[in-house]
């Protein structure tokens, strides 16, 4: 994924604000072989229990984010969530619950309330695993 420091900082800030619970949200921008993440669309973690270890985004949240994206000529290009006191790598649950190949999944690790490593992943076409994506930042994006 190609994105900006501004976007990554917004994700870090959200992750720190919800610590020790997981945060989650959408990445909006331009879809492609390399997705462009122009901005985030925050949503509440709808998980009823165990929000320290699980997150849920409802279809209604997806529809609202999709409308937000379309209103700005953008696409939903992926999602982000945090791993409080765990590494920034997809968990077995992340793989079990993975949606479609092509979305970028950003994971930010938070230790003692402070955001740390931030990584990007994409589900393999055969759905068997996540592959790490390169996460590059530029000052501005063509789709901005």
């Amino acid at each position, binding site marked *: 994924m190609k994105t900006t420091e501004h976007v990554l900082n917004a994700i870090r800030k959200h992750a720190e604000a919800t610590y020790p619970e997981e945060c*989650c949200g959408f990445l909006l921008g331009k*879809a492609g072989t390399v997705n462009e993440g122009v901005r985030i669309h925050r949503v509440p973690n709808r*998980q009823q229990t165990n929000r320290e*270890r*699980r*997150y*849920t*985004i*409802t*279809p209604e949240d*997806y*529809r609202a984010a*999709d409308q937000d994206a379309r209103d700005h000529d953008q*696409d*939903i*290009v992926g*999602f982000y*969530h945090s791993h409080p006191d765990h590494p920034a790598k*997809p*968990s*077995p*649950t*992340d793989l079990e*619950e*993975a*949606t*479609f*190949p*092509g*979305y970028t*999944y950003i994971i930010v690790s938070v230790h003692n309330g402070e955001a740390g490593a931030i990584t990007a992943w994409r589900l393999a076409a055969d*759905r068997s695993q996540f592959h790490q994506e390169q996460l590059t930042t530029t000052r501005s994006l063509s789709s901005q």
Partner: protein
Amino acid sequence: MESQKTSSVKIRIPTPLRSYTNDQSTVAVGGATVEEALQSLTQAYPALEPHLYHENGELRSFVNIYLGDDDIRYLNGPDTELPDDAELSIVPSIAGG
């Protein structure tokens, strides 16, 4: 019972799945019910099937189908009958750990 007629249905495709539908954001199919429309979709674009359905033929749990603004779970599920010019959307719910 009157015989079901086949309706013309538009299905909105989430961005990453458009690589399986020749980059089309909406696909027009025929079908009298939601299930028939989805079958027409996966027959036309078989590469979509493993992302929408489990091997046992059930829709994956994160795949939600909307008829207009309504989740079909709150209508008549896959048997929901479709009016002509119906618009269906494939809407994922997202979860993880």
